[in-house]
């Protein structure tokens, strides 16, 4: 009798194990649910997927949107620009997020881009570095290995250590495209996140790296490019040279769900530009 009970319990445990699998949700998804009830009775879900650089911006927008539309479930999956574009083309999410403009081959597959905001890419050096300003041309020469020592730029003697991002990163694509150094950069280190780049630069007096404007804090020094300091104002008026778009990717011809369309309209409206600015990016509006 005891054995029978034990077996039954074992069987139940085994089956509950499998049952548990079904209801499991991906742990890296940030789910934001609204709390206050708005005027409209919109319901459904909006899923976004893509660029990790856009996390702050899209998170803030999602929160603001669900605060007004409590029936909508908003999710953001930080996978990277490439994965986000793939996800939207495979129909796994409503809106893809990319921190680079779409490639022609991607547009050819029926994807449509809408620029949400701009992000400035800061060129950063160690706080102990005496160099404060570089031209775009000098930056290109540094990254292609033509200029190898800080003394050539008026700094203290020491080899320049080039820190960059991994191949395929939106920040790297953006930086190399703007400085026209595609496939030419002689990196000393290729790191996989903005945080790693900032940490490494803050540790090495000879290092130079790049990171998005929103994530640069005072642990490192942001250089002026061609005499223009990187700031929201200079990115917005276009005087700061190294900047890239934050793009919303949708499928051409495919109508979004009611909730997704409302979200899309909301974040591209003038109303949302304040939230985008608060999140550290520069709104197009």
């Amino acid at each position, binding site marked *: 009798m005891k*054995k*029978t009970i034990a*077996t039954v319990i*074992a*069987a139940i445990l*085994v089956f509950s194990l499998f049952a548990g699998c079904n209801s499991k949700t991906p742990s890296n998804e940030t789910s934001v649910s609204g709390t206050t009830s708005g005027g409209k009775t919109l319901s459904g879900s909006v899923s976004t997927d893509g660029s990790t650089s856009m996390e702050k911006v899209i998170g803030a927008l999602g929160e603001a949107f669900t605060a007004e539309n409590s029936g909508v479930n908003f999710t953001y999956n930080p*996978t*990277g*620009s*490439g*994965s986000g*574009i*793939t996800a939207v083309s495979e129909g796994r999410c409503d809106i893809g997020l990319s921190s680079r403009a779409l490639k022609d081959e991607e547009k050819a597959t029926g994807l449509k881009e809408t620029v949400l905001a701009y992000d400035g890419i800061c060129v950063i050096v160690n706080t102990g570095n005496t160099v404060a300003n570089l031209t775009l041309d000098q930056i290109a020469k540094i990254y292609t290995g033509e200029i190898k020592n800080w003394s050539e730029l008026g700094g203290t003697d*020491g*080899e*320049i*250590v080039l820190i960059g991002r*991994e*191949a*395929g*990163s*939106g920040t790297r*694509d953006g930086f190399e495209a703007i400085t026209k150094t*595609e*496939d030419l950069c002689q*990196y*000393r*280190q*290729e*790191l*996989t996140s903005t945080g*790693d780049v900032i*940490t*490494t630069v803050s*540790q*090495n007096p*000879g*290092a130079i790296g790049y990171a998005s404007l929103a994530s640069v804090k005072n642990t490192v020094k942001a250089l002026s490019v061609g005499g223009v300091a990187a700031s929201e104002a200079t990115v917005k008026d276009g005087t700061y040279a190294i900047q890239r778009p934050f793009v919303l990717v949708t499928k051409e011809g495919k109508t979004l769900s009611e909730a997704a369309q409302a979200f899309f309209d909301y974040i591209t409206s003038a109303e949302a530009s304040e939230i985008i600015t608060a999140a550290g990016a520069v709104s197009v509006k």
Partner: protein
Amino acid sequence: MQTKNHKKKPLETLVHGIFLVLGLVTVGCVLLITVYLVISGIPAIREIGLVKFLFGKEWRSTASEPSFGILPFILTSVYGTAGAMLLGVPVGFFTAVYLAKAAPPKVKTVVESAVGLLAGIPSVVYGLVGMLVLVPGIRKIFNVPDGASLLAAIIVLAVMILPSIIKVSVTALEAVPKEYEDASLALGATPVETYFRVSVPAAKSGIAAAVVLGVGRAIGEAMAVMMVAGNVANMPSLFQSVRFLTTAVASEMAYSSGLQRQALFSIALVLFLFIMLINAALNLLLKRGNAK
């Protein structure tokens, strides 16, 4: 009595069935991964060409004219693992002999729990400490422009493989019959002579298995290495920034597309074959040990 037996039989079969299913889950996972890796890894190798892929010296996956040669990754993985062995095996081996044979019980408890703790530290923590302490340290000590290098990766890996080497070796050494050692001591050998001439040879297949296990751990580690090695696809050199097979897959996977992504699967396939080879070696060693 008879009815009870009659009742028991289907129950037994049921339980057996459940266990069988659970066992098959593991086998199924291995099969699934193998089949998936082979299927997704072959196309890129076909497109690039096996020789060009394995022996190409240049990896430029996102260039306008991309080249996919993984020789730098293979050599880095081999050199890095060999370097980690060179540092880790002597330390691990002597620690194991000391712990199994010579250490007083109190010391043994403390050291063994420390080793256990070392095994439990997540690899990202090794990487973080390496990044913040080891990399700047190497830069200052060796006076090189940047410390992220093969050397940093070797040191981190050497520390990471210590627990597997020590634990398995200790188990093997402790399994040596006490009579062997008693006989050696009775014949006038000193304790140290006994440990190295009697106990170690008797446990040699277990110790070899420990070393192979360490090789497996070192070659498969990605996270910690990624944080200290610099990840540039250079040919391996001690103070150069290098990229391992594991980090080649991990660092580019997030943003990859097209042939680049397929090539990453091919790298994973090569890595998988390496690990299979190591596992086969491990099985062979253990079997030989059992046969004796």
